[in-house]
């Protein structure tokens, strides 16, 4: 059937610059470029291009420009080009439209409507280059109070403290499984996390055995509905265990790793046969209620001898705050909430673009809910989904999060351009693929350096902003709505965020 969708991108090659090295031909896994011997020139098929910019950056002569196509349908506010084309594609295939990455729709990005405070006169700002600036954070359950026994000057702690994760900066790498991402990308995340005093999350694809000893101490291992790759050693080599209930990009939806991506190594790590589809059901089939979840939480605590905090990750949906409070009472030490803009390797587009609520609103309502119930200290909040820069991190913390997870941001640091084609397995950047030729493009060392540079840069910026507010420890900003003001927001939005308008 002839497709009625025209190309999304237009490839322009400067013939005067092009040296016919055929680099672009090799770079593009989508087969866009082709060398024509008869003409001795490169020919590009715009239809195949996904706009990942790999060939542009790797063309040694800077001869290629890839830009959005100039063709357009007659403009129509209701029938945007995207709507029109999605519909055409479905008419042509009869299928669900898949996509990768997070929601790219213009829902209000609250980060960009919140401004921070700074000290003037009455409270000196602090220079982070001269004074200590503390970002260290503990994730896990804290007791209501700490009983101590004082005996001739010696203080004994009497209260039994729950295990906590200590992070040197409140930024953790979000769950991205081996299988969805390449081994090199996975290992780069692990390396950078260990180096930066933070944690990476294995996602639901297990943790390769040879990585356990070296990287287990900075791993949060996931237990998801597919139960892939879980054994006692997997749980016990890690710093914490996370039960994945939901994901911001696809709340209420399971996962599906196609058999083509299940290589021998992926299969061994996931403990499934090579080449079979790895299907994570939408719900955990042993969790149909909060009591069931509580049983799993305690089963994992038993399995890890109560030495590791147990996190529960849920997607931010309409009534999630009440559910999260139930999860805290069910024994979770950490609640990870993933907002509307959280990313994914593959999700139905209709779900990704329409289900869930923005993380900014979610943080504030969850924090308030737990405070109102007097149980905020019993669990830490990790916020995920749509964190793009250090300012987003600091705003998330002031809204009430203990730390954040970054996923897309980490991938971008490694080279990702958010082309949204992760589900094809052809990621030209070697991130979201199991094709050895493509995966080999990502150098683990370099990628790890890029990631730890990012963490370092953001941490430094957070210190600068904190110092500007006259605060030298991050814990004094947590839930401190006093330091936030909203701009261009409706009254109800300010109410939900719990912040004043600018100038108020």
């Amino acid at each position, binding site marked *: 059937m002839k497709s009625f969708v025209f190309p999304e991108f237009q490839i322009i090659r400067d013939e005067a610059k092009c040296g016919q090295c055929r680099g672009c031909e090799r770079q593009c896994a989508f087969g866009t470029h082709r060398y024509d011997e008869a003409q001795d020139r490169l020919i590009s098929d715009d239809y195949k291009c996904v706009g990942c910019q790999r060939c542009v950056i790797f063309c040694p002569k800077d001869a290629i420009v890839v830009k959005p196509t100039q063709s357009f349908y007659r403009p129509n506010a209701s029938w945007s080009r995207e709507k029109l084309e999605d519909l055409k594609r479905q008419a042509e295939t009869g299928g669900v439209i898949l996509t990768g990455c997070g929601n790219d729709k213009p829902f209000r990005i609250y980060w960009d409507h919140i401004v921070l405070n700074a000290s003037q006169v009455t409270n000196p700002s602090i220079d982070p280059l001269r004074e200590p600036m503390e970002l260290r954070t503990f994730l896990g359950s804290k007791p209501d109070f700490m009983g101590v026994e004082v005996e001739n000057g010696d203080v004994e702690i009497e209260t039994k403290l729950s295990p906590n994760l200590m992070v040197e900066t409140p930024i953790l790498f979000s769950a991205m499984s081996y299988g969805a991402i390449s081994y090199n990308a996975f290992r780069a995340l692990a390396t950078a996390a260990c180096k930066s005093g933070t944690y990476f999350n294995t996602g639901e694809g297990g943790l390769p055995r040879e990585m356990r000893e070296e990287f287990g101490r900075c791993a949060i291992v996931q237990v998801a509905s597919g139960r892939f790759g879980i054994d006692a050693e997997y749980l016990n080599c890690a710093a914490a265990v996370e039960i994945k209930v939901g994901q911001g990009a696809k709340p209420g939806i399971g996962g599906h790793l196609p058999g083509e991506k299940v290589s021998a190594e992926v299969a061994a790590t996931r403990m499934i046969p090579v080449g079979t589809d790895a299907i994570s059901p939408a719900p955990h089939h042993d969790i149909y209620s909060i009591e069931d979840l509580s049983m799993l939480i305690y089963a994992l605590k038993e399995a890890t001898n109560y030495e590791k905090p147990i996190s529960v990750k849920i997607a931010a949906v309409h009534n999630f705050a009440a559910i999260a409070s139930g999860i805290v009472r069910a024994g979770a030490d950490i609640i990870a909430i993933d907002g509307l803009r959280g990313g994914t390797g593959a999700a139905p587009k209709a779900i990704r673009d329409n289900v869930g609520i923005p993380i900014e609103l979610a943080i504030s309502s969850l924090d308030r809910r737990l405070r109102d119930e007097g149980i905020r*200290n019993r669990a830490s909040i990790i916020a995920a989904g749509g964190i793009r820069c250090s300012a987003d991190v600091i705003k998330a913390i002031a809204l009430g999060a203990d730390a954040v997870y970054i996923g897309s941001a980490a991938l971008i640091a490694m080279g990702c351009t958010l082309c949204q084609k992760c589900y094809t397995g052809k990621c030209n950047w070697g991130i979201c693929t199991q094709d050895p030729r493509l995966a080999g493009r990502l150098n683990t060392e370099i990628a790890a350096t890029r990631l730890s540079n990012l963490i370092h840069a953001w941490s430094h910026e957070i210190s600068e902003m904190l110092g500007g507010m006259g605060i030298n420890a991050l814990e004094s900003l*947590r839930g401190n709505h006093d330091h936030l003001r909203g701009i261009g927001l409706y009254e109800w939005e300010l109410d939900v965020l719990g912040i004043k308008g600018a100038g108020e």
Partner: protein
Amino acid sequence: MFTLCLEFKIIMPRKRRELYNKEICACSIFGAMNRDGDRFTAEGVMKAIANMHVRGNGLGGGFAAYGIYPDYRDYYALHLMFTGHDWEAKRSAKQDFDAFLCENFDVVHDEEVPHRDESTVTDPPLVWRYFVLPNKKGDEAQLSDEDYVVKKVMWVNTQIEKAFVFSSGKNMGCFKGVGYPEEIGEYFMLDRLYRAYTWTAHGRFPTNTQAWWGGAHPFSLLDISVVHNGEISSYGTNRWYLEMYGYACTLQTDTEVIAYAADLLMRRQHLPVELVAKILAPPIWNSIDRMNESERKLLTALRMVYGPLLMNGPFAIIIGQTGKMIGLTDRIRLRPLTAATRGAMFYLSSEEAAIRLISPQLDDVWTPNGGEPVVGELKNIRMVKDEVIRLS
């Protein structure tokens, strides 16, 4: 009827965002204690705080005095302020309060707090004191006396308009108002009518609030009183944590959160003052990481559990308590505090000159390190660490 029901359904309760205003001020603080328990009038303390006149701007001054009511030492002394635009309004605020008080307490004695009529202070409220015992009923019978008093004080401060509790401890009281501290001292005749073994005093320089008698320092709950110089940038965080433990922060000043934190940690959770200081002004991680294992474990646990009570930003405070006077500055010492001793006397002050004015000869004068508490106790003085900077 039907429409009424319908309307009821449509109105969805939305939690309004908190439009509180935090007040910002700079100040002078002073404290004097006789560790033998000998009681003295406020004369010297008034002179000392007046010496730091320029640190205030006449928008607030106050005193806390310990040991002033020996005859009623077993009763909670409630100092109440009633406001209103005229005498009638103040009387009616008092009537509302009296009705509440009779319901909840047994009153053994009450009287107006004496004051001088020919005074420079403007628009004084009606200030009254009551000596009471809890009269616990129903569910509340299970509360300890102190928890009961705290609960009732919170109730009065949030629910009874125009009535406000200055202080609620035993054998102690706060006197405060709008004016320079020396004017407030004269107004309440502290130099003639009262003898205390500890006096703390405060002169205030608020930058943004209109004058309100309740907004002056000290802030007090039960027998804990706090005078404070500084601004607490962690206010929002401290406040949300304390609210979880039932403290309603109604006064919109950061000093209030210190008083509540002290009450929570010292009275309710029985933590020794040294640890409380390490919660309010903990050492930095760099130092903690270098400590020996047991110290490191303790301080790490304290910061982990009580991080939200870290008081961030510049402050120097004097906490008064029965039998104790505690001085503390923030951990990077952004506000001044000088400590001194002379015989049984123990002094804390924003400026050394104020101490020298009333006690030219001193046995010892020093500047406590940031985050290191100085504790004066009846019959004893304790420095938590030996590492104090000696000046003379």
